[in-house]
Structures are given as C-alpha cells and as structure tokens.
C-alpha cells in the first residue's frame, strides 16, 4: 500500500495523495486504485513487479476522483479488467475531461501520460473477484462520498478496503450525498472486519471504531446546516455556523469545510 500525503495535488507529490495499493492472490493481482497520475501508477506497477510476475488481472477504480484513478493508463499493457461502479461511466463522462485539465494545470509535465480510463466491468450491487485462493467481494454503494463509491472486502485477511467512504485524520469531502453517506456508514460499520483501509489516513485502522470521527463530523454538518437553513442563513455564510466543534480535529479543515457545507446546504434545502 502507498500512504497518501495530506496535501492537494502538486508537481512535487505527483497527486500521490490517496491510499492506494494491490492485493496478491495465487493466480493474479488486483490493484485497488491506480493512483493520482500515470507517474504514480507506474510506481505502483513497479512495486508490484518487484514482488511478483503474476498477471495484473484487475484494476479497481473505487470512485471518480482524480487522486484515485488517473494512474489507470500505466496498466494498459497488462490488459486488465478495469472494474468500477455502474455509475462511474456517467460520472467520468461528466467530469473526466475537467479533472484531466485540472490535473495538467496542477502537475504540469508530471501529468504526462495520465488519462481518463473508462471501466470495462461494472458493479451495480456485488461482485466477487477470484485471485486464486483469495476472494475479494466488491460492493457498489448508494450516493455517499460520490455517487459511484465501491468498497472491497478481502475475506482471507478480513480486511475492509473502504477507499473514500472512510476518511481518517483528513477532513471528509462531501461530493455525493450527506444523508446517503450517513446511511451507508450505518450499513458498512455493521460489517465485521479485522482492519479497515481508509482512502485517506493511516493505511490500516481499527474497524469500525475508526469511522466514528467521520460519522460525528457528518452528523454535525447535517444537524447544523439544517438549523442554518431553517434560520434563513444564506448558502454563502452557512459554513460559519456549522460544525465549529470539529475545527482543529481535522487536517485541511479550512480548505474543504466551507465547500462541504455548501454541498450539504444544496442537498438539505430540498428537505
């Protein structure tokens, strides 16, 4: 696993800001998120090849966000199945080109080779992948962090790879549905596992305890944003009144919190 840094995308970090990695079976390898740029994808591929020459059969794209998927092109020669949520193609159609332009702006030459790669295998509910003596169970979730979140459960080690359904230390980003995310959190935290892998944070955390701060933050945003809407506070000012108890508990709070509240406001004002 690669442990992403808690920064925005830059030429120095090559957009290697998310936790990414791979799982090795007797017959094949599954990549879980190829990384934020072709450069990071190539580094991941080299790390796999240093360990094994088994075929890289699956590249799992956990969701549409650029820090997780722009390394996909680095695996083109392996001809893997690119596995994504059934709603990932729609999200890529809507956002892929924009994300790629933004990546090129942020990384300059370091973005070279990064491309939008569409999934070739879609998951609308569940899908089991057999790596040879090792079965991965993929779950497609309802709108939460995004509207196309996948999680992966490795039965052999009872490891639950939640990708960006779980943020630890770094402030969660709401880009799907706040209400939906709280619902999905209730469901995934009921699934027992020996450890979890968050999309951002330490590469291995205790489960389900590690989800508690995220649940607390999302609940606070939902509660206080509803109150702000009811009190007639406008969308631009609402963040000043929302989840102030969470400030200081998250990295990059001031970078993402106001935007999260804007998203929450836009969702909750329809209630």
């Amino acid at each position: 696993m690669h442990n992403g840094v808690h920064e925005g995308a830059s030429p120095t970090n090559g957009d290697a800001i998310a936790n990414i990695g791979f799982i090795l079976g007797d017959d094949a390898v599954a990549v879980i998120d190829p990384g934020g740029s072709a450069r990071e994808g190539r580094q991941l591929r080299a790390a796999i090849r240093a360990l094994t020459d088994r075929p890289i059969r699956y590249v799992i794209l956990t969701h549409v966000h650029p820090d997780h998927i722009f390394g996909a092109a680095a695996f083109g020669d392996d001809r893997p199945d690119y596995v994504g949520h059934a709603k990932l193609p729609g999200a890529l159609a809507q956002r892929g080109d924009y994300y790629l332009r933004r990546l090129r702006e942020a990384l300059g030459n370091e973005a070279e080779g990064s491309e939008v790669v569409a999934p070739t295998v879609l998951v609308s509910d569940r899908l089991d992948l057999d790596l040879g003596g090792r079965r991965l169970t993929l779950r497609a979730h309802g709108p939460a962090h995004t509207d196309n979140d996948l999680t992966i459960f490795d039965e052999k080690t009872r490891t639950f790879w939640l990708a960006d359904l779980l943020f630890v230390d770094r402030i969660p980003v709401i880009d799907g549905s706040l209400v939906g995310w709280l619902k999905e959190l209730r469901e995934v935290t009921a699934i027992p596992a020996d450890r979890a892998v968050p999309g951002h944070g330490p590469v291995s955390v205790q489960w389900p305890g590690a989800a508690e701060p995220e649940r607390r933050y999302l609940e606070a945003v939902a509660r206080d944003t509803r109150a702000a809407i009811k009190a007639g506070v406008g969308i631009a000012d609402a963040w000043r009144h929302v989840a102030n108890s969470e400030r200081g508990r998250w990295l990059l709070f001031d970078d993402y919190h106001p935007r999260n509240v804007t998203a929450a406001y836009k969702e909750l004002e329809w209630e």
Partner: protein
Amino acid sequence: MTRSMAIFLLVILTFGGAARAEPTEAERMARWSDLRHAIFGDRVVEDAGDLVAVDAPARAEDAAIVPVAIRVAGTLAPEIRGFYLIIDDNPSPLAAHFLLGPIADAREIATRVRIDDYTYLHAVAETADGRLYMAARFIKAAGGCSAPASKDQALALERLGKMKLSLADRSKPEEPINVKLLISHPNSSGLQMDPATRNYIPADFMQTLDVTYNGQPIFRLESDIAISEDPSFNFRVRPSDPTGPGVINAEVLDSNQRHFSQSWPVPAAAQM
C-alpha cells in the same frame, strides 16, 4: 427570440471562452465597455453610487454555486422595472435579465451563478423611464462553468423540473412577502466533454422563468448557462391586496423546450 436572447448568443460568439493571461485592470475596463455597448448600445449607464449594490462573496467557496444579490435603495426601488446581471469574464457574460412587474419589491433579488474566472460582476438596474444604474464588484472564483456540480445524477434526473417554494414569516402585512424559490434543473452549460466520444454534452438550461402572484407578474427572468444547477431565487412581492390569500405560480421553459409549472397557496397574512 427576444432582443436579450439574441445578445446572449452574440456574446458567446464574440467572446467565447478562449484561454488567456490574467487581464490588467485596463483590459477589464475595456471589456466592460465592449459588453456595455453590446447590451445597452449608446444608452447612458450611470454609476449607481449608493443606490444599487451587487453583493457576492469576494472569494467563492464553490465557483459553480456563487450566491449573488442585487440590492436597491428604498427610495429608488419603486421605479425599478428590471435588472441585468453581467459576469464579464464568463463565456456567456449576460447571466440574467430580470423584468419586474409592478408588484415586485425591487429592494432585493438574489440567485446563484457559475463563475468561470476572476471577474467583475456588473448589476444594472433599469427604471420605468429608461434610466440605467450600474453597480460593480470584483470576485475571485474560477472553473464554475465547466465544472459540473451534479453530485447525484440519478437524483437530478428524478427531480427534474420539481420546484420548492418557501415563504418567510408574514406577521406584518405592511411588509413585502419574502419568497425563496428552488427549481430542480441541471442548467448545464454544454461546456463539459464526454471523454468517450469527445463530444460536448449538450447544454440544457432554463431560458425563461415567469413568476406571478394571483396572475400578476412578479418577474420574468431571461437567463442561460450562468445560473447554477438547481436555480435558486430570493425575491420580494407586495401584493395589491396585502393581507392575501393568494397563489404564486412559477413557470419554466428550458432550452430543450420543456415546460415546468407549479403553484403554491399563500395564506392570508393573519393566518401565518
């Protein structure tokens, strides 16, 4: 096609979204001068001073959802019959043209817009006798036109055309009724590209919105891609019968010739 719809198209063709270096202040002034001539011809556009203000956050949290309010001094408000909202550096700068009916209270009207680059916002208020008052504000936001805001595409489709109306407390019949109207619509810009086909996703936006109270116009809006997804409007109305009851109706026509319409009862003032 109305005159202002023709202007929307004209400015897209004339100024359409070429990448360029950060403009100097002189270039920004020249651009406003060009836009002013394209929209208002040779008419005099006066500096509004304290009479009109355009309010928006100096730095937007989300460039696809930037709240903007136009405010008019109480002394001038009864004379105002329309507003133009111009986002100078957007691909289509004339974001909105509001035409107000006599029962509209022009002291405040607000919406949310997409902003593509650091830009001046200009609000021009037009009086019944044709005077134009201009207010300006600089705003730092970028990427709002090409950035798709839609977070849950299935929900957006399911909710398309639905509207929600909220009325503020109406305990004082002498005060105008404060109304907030939400319309579920992607209002997409057509500036997003499908990487699979390399085609631009077709634009799909609200062209006109007509809001009435008991059949009398509060305002008509002529707009295009600069209004945010799920358009939102705050406005004030002074019904000819101030204690009510009444009915507010909103009617949308979009660029795909879809019609959406919805009505809401406004209880009599004493009952609220």
